[in-house]
Every structure is written in C-alpha cells, then in structure tokens.
C-alpha cells in the first residue's frame, strides 16, 4: 500500500499521469466495443462536470446542490440554438458557456453574504427552478425535451458512431483539463482555498472574498456547461429528466468520492459514479440505496476522499532580496481614530475612542476582559461597522470600506483567536497576505510574491517550516505565522490582538524583539496585550480602556502613575492579571 503511494509521488508519474491517461484512452477507443465506449464517453462527461463543480465545492468550499442546472443550461442553450436557429454546434458552444456563466452570476450574487449552510438550500432551489422551468415551457419542449439534434461534424465528417463520440468527448475533456490545470496555478486558486478555510480571515488580510466567490460560481458553471452540448450531441436529445436533484447529487459525489480540490480525484470519482452503476445493472432497483449507503460510509471512513489533493510545493528563492520598499518618509499619525463607537443592542462595547499611531511607534491598548479592545480592532479594520466615528489611514478615510480594501490601504491585523488557513501550507498562508498589496487573480504568483513570502518567513524565523501545513504547527509558531501573513502586506499599520497570549517568558521576549523589529521598519504597531510589564517596556504610548471608554492615554510612565488606572485595575481582585499589575504599578 505504502509502496504504491510512493510510486504515485514519483515526479515523472506525477506530471506524466494525465498524458499517459489520454494515450491509454486513445488506444482504448480502438479496442472497446460500442457499449463500453459509450460508458467511457459518459465517464468523460461526468469528469468535465466534476472539474466544474470542483472549482465551486473543491477549491472555494461553496456547497452546490444544484449543479445540474448548469449542465441543463448548457444542453438547452446549445440544443435550442441548433434546432431553432440552425446554428452550428461549434458556435453554440461559447453561447452555452456564456449562458451558464451568466446563470453563475445569478445564483452567486444573492448568496455572497449568506452563511455557508444556506447555500445548500439556495443552490438546490435554483436547480429545481431551472428544471421545473424547462419542463413547463413550450419552447424547451416541455416534459419531452428537445429531440432531433443534428450530429456534430468535425472537418466535414459527421460524428455518429459511439467511438467517434468518445474521441470528441476526450478532446473536450483534454481541453477542460488543461484549462482547469492552468486555473489551479493562479493566485485565484489560492484565494479560493483561503476562503474555503476561513473567509473572514481571508477578507481581513486582503482577499476580495465576494469577487473571488462569484468567480468560483461563474468559472465552475462555465466549465460544467461544456458537458451540456456534449451530452446533447451524444444522445441527439435533451431530456429534462436527466437534470434532477439526483443528477446534482451524482456530480457532487464525483468530488466527494475523489477528494475535494483534487483533479485526479475527479477522474476517480467520475469512474466510480458512472461505471459502478453499470456494473450493478443486475440489481437495478437497489442502486439508489446502495449509493446512499456508499455516501455515508465514505464520509464517515474517508472524509478526505479517495485521492485527496496534495499541496503544491513552492519553490521559494534561496535568499530573499532586500525589501524593495522605499524607506518611507512618513511622519505624523498614520492611524487616526476619532469618536469610534460601537453598540451591541444595549451594550456600548466601544465608546468615543480616540487613537493615534505614528510611523515606527508601538501603541498599546490595555484593559480588562470585555473592555472592548477587540471590538475596537474589528471596527477599525471594517470587519464590523462602527456605530459612529471615523478611521483614517495616512490621512485617507477608510471607515465604511470592506475589510479587504482597508487591508489594501495598508492596515494589517492578527486575531486574538489565531485564524490561519489550516489546510494550506505555511508559505501559502503568507502568500495570501500578499493580496493586500496585489489583488491580481488570473495569473500565477509572481517572483515578487515569492520573494516577499521568503522575506516574511525569514523575518519571523519560520522559513524551515515553509511547506508544512499550517494546521500542524505548534502554538507559538502559529502566532508567528499569523504575524508573517500580516507582514506580507507590507502594512503601514499593524494591529496585533494579544499576540503574547499563552506564551512563556522566553517566547514573550522573542516576541517583543520581533515587535521592535517591525516598528523599526517604519510600521506603526498597535498592540492589545494583557501583560502590563511587557506593554510598559515596549510601548511609546498606552491607551487604557474600561467598559469601552478610554480612561487614560499617554506614555507608559504617566499611565503607571495614573490613579484612575490603578483604581480600575485594582478594582478587580479576582483577575489573574491583577497580581502582575500590582507588581508593575505598585
């Protein structure tokens, strides 16, 4: 078993796998009988559908239970254009893809703000809407569908034999395979995997998550739609009963069985989905039940699929060139927050907060639990809208912008509860941080991206772990990785939410040194921290929050002497931090 998988990892096989498969298929077309070659053609159709839904579900993690709708739209568009307007098959193809892409916008747009579970019902409803509509309308042939679709001709020769159709399907499959392969290398594919892992965090570090999600629907639909005209050409008919919920489920199963985000997995899934029922033809009535049970067993026993996706290893530069950014001659306050207020129902979590941070400064925000520190960060970064107040970054107002735009304006952050993209590697996590600087989607990561990744990993000392999955890192490294991801944006202002939580004294010292180096780059650092000793030693200015209000603001020495601060801290005797406070302040 092990040896077999080792063989699969062989680079020659890894890159030669697809061409080999195509060659085998070409040869196979010669020896298979009509029945086998028809089944093989159907496998290819499902593989194309699988490659389409793999974009939506596998990469972007957006559940789609109505994918057959795009299959149907492709088939009907092509069929109708051929029958009613006498279009040539090849001309209908782009029309079918465009129609499905438009449908992808229609279904994608309203669902962008939805909680992921609701996608299931909305996509399912959309699938039913399309199916019921084509059954009800006269122009689509009602329940009978379209019949008499002319055969495809290639170079003047009509494709009428099952073997001929198989080769046509193979050509389609090869094209789709190459295109999706190119897509899988783009920055967009990394962005998809990031939003699948944690869309809030992705948005916060600069990924335009709505656009990225919409693109998943559109591109997934466009790819899947290719199967429609192909199917119509194979059968000469378009039958509405082939686009039911069960079809959508089968298409979904292709990626679930194969492994989400894995293109070889899609091939395996398509073979299982199509060939297995053929093998089970003798027990026709129990097919459905068998499938249902298979589904449950697979999810419980092998949730990652039969052929799960393997991370692509980055070839990072051996040594990062020094940062190209000009030594910024920025002076004055980079971050200006005024009158920031946020209410939750009756609770005022942040009240009339004023905050300033200048280039190269470390500004700390302290205060007891529930004082409103994290809420203030969330309002500043646009994660939640403030009730009132202004936020300006280098003089530019950013309040009201979506988080990825705030990030692009130069504001990076980390989260109190570390939010990494767990299934992605360390290097990939940092790469996502680059979206704040460069939002290009449809090209592979550039040299500049890789240099930045290398530089940030070196900066925090994680370069050796570059290819490890982020989910497997020890706690301290996770904190540092989150900081590296934020630094990849080359931020002007960096907000750190309790980076030292849970760290031991050695780690805390290392962290302080890291923060000092970051501010040394000319970045303004705003730090939330409970460890008052650490805060006092590192900060240029400190703001003390209590019940959402700033009760004191000033340089550390002033704060330490402020009677209100002492009173506020000493007023909570059960707080574990109190001892520390008395130690430092007392």
């Amino acid at each position, binding site marked *: 078993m092990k040896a077999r998988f080792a063989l699969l990892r062989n680079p020659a096989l890894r890159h030669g796998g697809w061409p080999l498969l195509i060659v085998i298929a070409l040869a196979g077309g010669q020896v298979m009988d009509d029945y086998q070659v028809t089944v093989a053609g159907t496998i290819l159709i499902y593989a194309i559908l699988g490659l389409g839904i793999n974009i939506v579900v596998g990469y972007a*993690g957006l*559940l789609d*239970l109505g994918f057959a709708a795009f299959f149907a739209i492709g088939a009907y568009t092509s069929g109708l254009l051929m029958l009613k307007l006498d279009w040539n098959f090849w001309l209908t193809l782009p029309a079918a893809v465009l129609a499905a892409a438009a449908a992808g916008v229609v*279904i994608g*747009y*309203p*669902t962008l*703000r*939805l*909680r*992921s*579970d*609701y996608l*299931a*019902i*909305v996509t*399912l*409803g*959309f699938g*039913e*809407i399309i199916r*019921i*509509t084509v*059954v*009800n309308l006269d122009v689509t042939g009602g329940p009978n569908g379209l019949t008499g679709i002319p055969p495809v001709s290639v170079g003047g020769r009509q494709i009428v034999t099952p073997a001929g159709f198989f080769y046509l399907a193979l050509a389609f499959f090869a094209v789709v395979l190459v295109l999706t392969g190119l897509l899988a290398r783009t920055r967009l594919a990394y962005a998809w995997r990031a939003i699948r892992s944690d869309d809030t965090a992705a948005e916060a570090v600069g990924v335009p998550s709505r656009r990225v999600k919409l693109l998943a629907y559109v591109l997934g639909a466009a790819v899947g739609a290719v199967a429609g005209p192909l199917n119509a050409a194979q059968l000469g008919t378009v039958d509405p009963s082939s686009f039911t*919920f069960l079809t959508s*489920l089968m298409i*979904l199963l292709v990626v*679930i069985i194969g492994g989400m985000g894995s293109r070889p997995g899609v091939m395996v899934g398509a073979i299982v989905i199509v060939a297995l029922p053929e093998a089970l033809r003798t027990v026709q*009535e*129990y097919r*459905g*039940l068998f*499938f*249902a*049970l*298979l*589904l*449950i067993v697979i*999810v*419980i026993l092998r*949730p990652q699929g039969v052929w799960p996706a393997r991370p692509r290893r980055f070839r990072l530069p051996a040594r990062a060139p020094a940062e190209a950014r000009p030594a910024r001659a920025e002076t004055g306050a980079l971050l200006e927050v005024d009158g920031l207020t946020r209410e939750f129902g009756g609770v005022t979590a942040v009240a009339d907060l004023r905050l300033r941070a200048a280039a190269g400064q470390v500004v700390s925000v302290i205060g007891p639990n529930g004082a409103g520190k994290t809420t203030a960060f969330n309002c500043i970064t646009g994660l939640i809208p403030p009730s009132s107040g202004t936020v300006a970054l280098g003089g530019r107002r950013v309040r009201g912008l979506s988080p990825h735009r705030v990030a692009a304006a130069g504001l990076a952050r980390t989260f109190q*509860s570390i939010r990494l993209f767990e299934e992605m590697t360390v290097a990939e996590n940092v790469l996502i941080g680059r979206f704040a600087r460069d939002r290009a989607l449809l090209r592979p990561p550039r040299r500049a991206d890789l240099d930045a990744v290398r530089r940030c990993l070196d900066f925090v000392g994680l370069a050796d772990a570059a290819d490890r999955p982020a989910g497997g890192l020890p706690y301290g490294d996770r904190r540092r990785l989150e900081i590296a991801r934020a630094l990849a944006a080359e931020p002007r202002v960096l907000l750190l939410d309790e980076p030292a939580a849970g760290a031991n004294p050695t780690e805390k010292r290392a962290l302080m040194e890291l923060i000092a180096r970051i501010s040394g780059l000319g970045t303004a650092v705003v730090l939330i921290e409970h460890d008052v000793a650490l805060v006092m030693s590192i900060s240029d200015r400190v703001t003390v929050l209590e019940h959402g209000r700033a009760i004191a603001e000033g340089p550390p020495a002033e704060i330490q002497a402020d009677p209100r601060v002492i009173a506020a801290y000493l007023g909570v005797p059960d707080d574990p931090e109190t001892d520390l406070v008395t130690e430092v302040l007392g």
Partner: protein
Amino acid sequence: MSEFVQYLVNGLTIGAFLALIALGYSMIYGVVRLINFAHGDVFMIGAFAGYGVLTTLGVTGGSAWPALLAAVVVGALTTGVVGTGIARAAYVPLLSSPRLALLISAIGVSLALEEGVKDLTHARFKSYPGVLDGGRIFSGTVRVTYGQLALVLLSVALMAGLWLFVTRTVTGTAMRALAMDRDAARLQGINVERLILVTFFVGSMLAGAAGVMYGLYYVQISFGMGFLIGLRAFTAAVLGGIGNLPGTMVAGVCIGLVQSFAAGYVSSRWTDVIIFGLLIAVLALRPTGLFGERVVERA
C-alpha cells in the same frame, strides 16, 4: 371572492403541516448546525407509519376519531425513534468533523430512507382510508370541513406544546442554551450529546405527526413525498429565521399560503418556482431571514 377565501383556507391547512415540519429543521439546526436533509423523509416515514396503523386497525372509512388519534401518536413516536436513531448512527460520529461531512451524511440518509421505502413499497402509491370527516362547517361555495379544522387545531396544539416545552422545562431551556453556544452549554454541565438526541426526538415527532396529518388530508402517500415538502418546509425555516421558533411558525403558514395562492391563481406547475424564487429573493435582501436568527455563529 369565494375563490380567495377558499385558497386562504387551504393555505392555512397546508401551512399548519409545513410549520410543524419547519420547526424540526429549525430546532435541529439550532443544536447541531445541520440542515437535516433527512427531515423531509422522516416526515414521509411518519405518513407510512400512520398508514400502517390505520390499515392494521382495519379502518376503512367514516369517522373514527380514536383510530385517527392512535395513528398520529404512533406515527409521531415511530419517527421520534427513527430520527433519534439516525442522529445516533450517522450524525453524532461526525460532530467534530467539518460541517460539510455532516451535511453529506444527511443527504446520504435522506436518499437511503427514500430508496429503502421505495424498494419496500415497490415504488407504489398508498392511499389512506377516507376517514377524515368530510362534513362541512359552512354550506356555500367555500368548502371548510371539520376534518380541516381538526388538523389545524391539532397543529396549533402541538406547536403550543412545543412552545411550553422549550420555554418552561429545564430540557427546553438547556436546548436554547445549546443553540446559543455549544461550548458554554457544555461548561454549564449540559450533556450535549443527550440533548442533541432529545432535540432530534422532539423535532422528528413533529414531522411524523405532520406526515400522518398529510396522509389524512391528501390521502395519497409515496416514498418521494418528503422531498418537495421538506424543501418547502426548510424554506419556511430559513425565512422565519433559523432557530427562531415563532418566526418559523409564521413563515410555515406563509409558505402554505403562497403555495395555495400560487396553485390557485397561477398554476400548480409553477408553485415551487415561485417558492424558491421567493426564498432566493428574501435571502438576497435579508441573509438572516424575515424575522432574524436566534443562533450565534462563532465570532
């Protein structure tokens, strides 16, 4: 005018079933964050269980209130047990897996129930004996039967019972706490797994009762009846605001009315297009439903 009143009455009757099923979706989502795809099929199982009771008792027609009540009770208990069993076997093992795994498992269970019943019934329709009292309350163009009234009253009684259970009992309160925050609930000493199973039991019972009522009202039942009804009920649960029980009840009745008016004034062929179109439109404008959710996502 009389047409309008007729559709209104029919809509309210259908809405009563839908609300009962929708409540199950809503409660279950509250405690496990799962769209229980199998819920519509649990409803279908309830219809078949009730059918089994009536045929075993040899009820063939006429008024037979005790037999009807027995069918509802047995139907509800059967689905309660089935629902809990499903949760135990297919959902609880996946509680700590990604949410998608749980959902796929639910889809699998749904398909298994449908296909299982299909094989057992040889894909044939079954017909409930025409026992529901056909006596009219009004004589005139609008047809309102005592049977309809009884079904609506029974649904209202069940919903009131649920409301008392959720707000007045310790278990019900714990359930609401669980919907708010699973970890906090666990810290409060709540046995989360047991509570999840209790929720499945109660939610499935409501669906089962609705299944029997559906059979009594529409007469014909089949293995596939749960799919569309389940979707409509789930639509109601989402529109009402998941976890928001009063909102869900109101939305259930609304969907019933939409269904009835759409079938009456447009065409029953377009009913589901209208319902799902409405769902997509409402969610696009208000992502948390018409009346707001009562569940809390992680911060």
